């Protein structure tokens, strides 16, 4: 996030108010509904009302987390705490996490070395990167998604390949900017923070994300992390 110009700040505030307004509306409206007719709600409707509230809350907190995360990174206050991480286990955990849009999906196929792959890295940050990249792959495609893990000398490679809408070539340079959303996916809901967060987390891990995309064919995101131990 650039704080240098008023225009940028204006844009950020307008994005903030827009992103927060909808979940707040959902929360407010559903709470009113529960309050005014709790007794008359049939169980299915009541369950849905609570679920809508929870989802709205999750959306707000995730959004605030992302903003906070980007802010920390901009101030260079992001620190990694490396430790030995079993990558296969970490990926399994990501796929089992209930708070993601791809939870319970059978479209994601993991290809990783059969032997345990232990890599020294920050578990939380790596989880963030993989979750955000998988969310995008899942959201912007309807077909199978491949997640490939490989390791080289002091290097971890994770590749996420989808067969989705792709990124327009003239917009690929902007995709890591906070709040940036490509024209071809504006009808899908999103904050435009996912890739920004992923990139900042990857950078902190001493790594990088390279995006390779063809419009209407699909996108491959390649995450490459170098190990500190050399």
């Amino acid at each position, binding site marked *: 996030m650039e704080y240098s110009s008023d225009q940028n700040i204006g844009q950020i505030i307008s994005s903030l*108010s*827009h992103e927060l*307004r*909808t*979940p*707040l*509306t*959902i*929360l*407010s*409206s*559903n709470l*009113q*509904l529960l309050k*005014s*007719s709790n007794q*008359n*709600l049939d169980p299915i*409707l009541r369950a*849905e*009302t609570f679920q*809508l509230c929870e*989802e*709205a809350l999750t959306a707000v907190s995730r959004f605030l987390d992302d903003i906070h995360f980007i802010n920390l990174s901009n101030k260079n206050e992001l620190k990694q705490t490396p430790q030995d991480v079993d990558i296969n286990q970490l990926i399994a955990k990501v796929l089992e996490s209930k708070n993601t849009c791809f939870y319970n999906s059978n479209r994601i196929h993991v290809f990783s070395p059969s032997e345990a792959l232990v890599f020294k890295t920050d578990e939380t940050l790596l989880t963030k990167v993989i979750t955000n990249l998988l969310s995008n792959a899942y959201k912007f495609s309807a077909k199978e998604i491949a997640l490939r893990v490989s390791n080289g000398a002091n290097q971890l490679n994770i590749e996420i390949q989808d067969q989705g809408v792709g990124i327009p070539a003239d917009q690929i340079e902007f995709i890591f900017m906070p709040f940036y959303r490509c024209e071809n996916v*504006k*009808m899908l*809901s999103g904050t435009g923070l996912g890739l920004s967060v992923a990139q900042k987390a990857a950078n902190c891990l001493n790594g990088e994300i390279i995006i390779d995309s063809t419009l209407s064919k699909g996108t491959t995101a390649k995450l490459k992390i170098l190990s500190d131990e050399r």
Partner: protein
Amino acid sequence: MNAKKILIIEDDLALGKTLRNVLKINDYEVDLAESGAEGIQKAYEYCPDLILCDINMKPIDGYQVYNILKDSALTSRIPFIFITGRSQLNDIRFGLELGVDDYIVKPFDNQDLLKSIKVRLEKYEKLVNIGKNDYKALLNLSPNGVFVFDGETIYETNQAFLNLLGLSEAEVKKISFNQLISDKEYQKVENKIMKCANGLLGNFREEIELKTASGTKEKFVLHVSPSQKYNGFTLLIGLLAPKEQEGESAQLEYKKLVNILEEEKIYISGNLANKLHQAFDASVAHSPHQQSTSTMVAKSVFSKREQEVLNLSCKGLPIKIIADQLSISDRTVEKHRASLMEKTGAKNIVEVIIYALKNDLVEI
């Protein structure tokens, strides 16, 4: 009473579901569209009583949805409420200028939303009822038989239609359209009716023969055009106009009358003119279409002075007095009268006067 149908056009599924639940709990029937395009399509398909629409959608936003629906006779009258996160006055004003009925700003109070919907629906219903009453009055005044049908079943008719066929309302509802006419006559129109019902044909007219209340077979002109969609099928409006024969005979009688007046050298007094006017009205009623076009022609063709001469002539005033009143010479009055005759195709001033009465060009 049937539940009112509300269409929600909202691309945020969670908000859409929330709105749906709030409305459902309050006894509305709800349809949910997740994009502008889907919303437009559903507005046509389901004919909702009211539309709630988000503004900020891609690629078709709420303003575009509104503009597209406003352009169609089927959907333009549906009350339209915008839901928006934009609280800026300019945005609200822009929407209201477009003609949107109301604005709800996120986050909103459920009660406010419900109140706004209720007010719009009531207002809409009132308008529809006014329209309906006017429409019914017009239909019942019409000397032509008017009926609403789906190609077979007849749903509604005016009094003239019942009188024409000598049937009661209950009897009409029991029979279908093809039973009103002979098979041979039905074959002439069957195809066209089907095309109208399927939207392949805008409208058509066809001469048909049918048995009237008096038991005789008479010729009519049948006009049919599609009216509105209802639960997935199209209702058609039919109009049965007697084939113009009486109209011609009335014209003949009228010619005779003019001749008599001429020979007797009678100036038309206000009273007589009134009577003539009434007598004429009855025959004119058979061809309302013709009347309106000639009125239009005449109104645009007469000059101001000619109109004044015409008005005074209708009062039965002699040329001299007309000339005095308008401060012009007798010869000028004659000139205007000649011009009036020429423009109306009349042979003498009495014909001009009757023409004027017939077409409501003067007040008596």
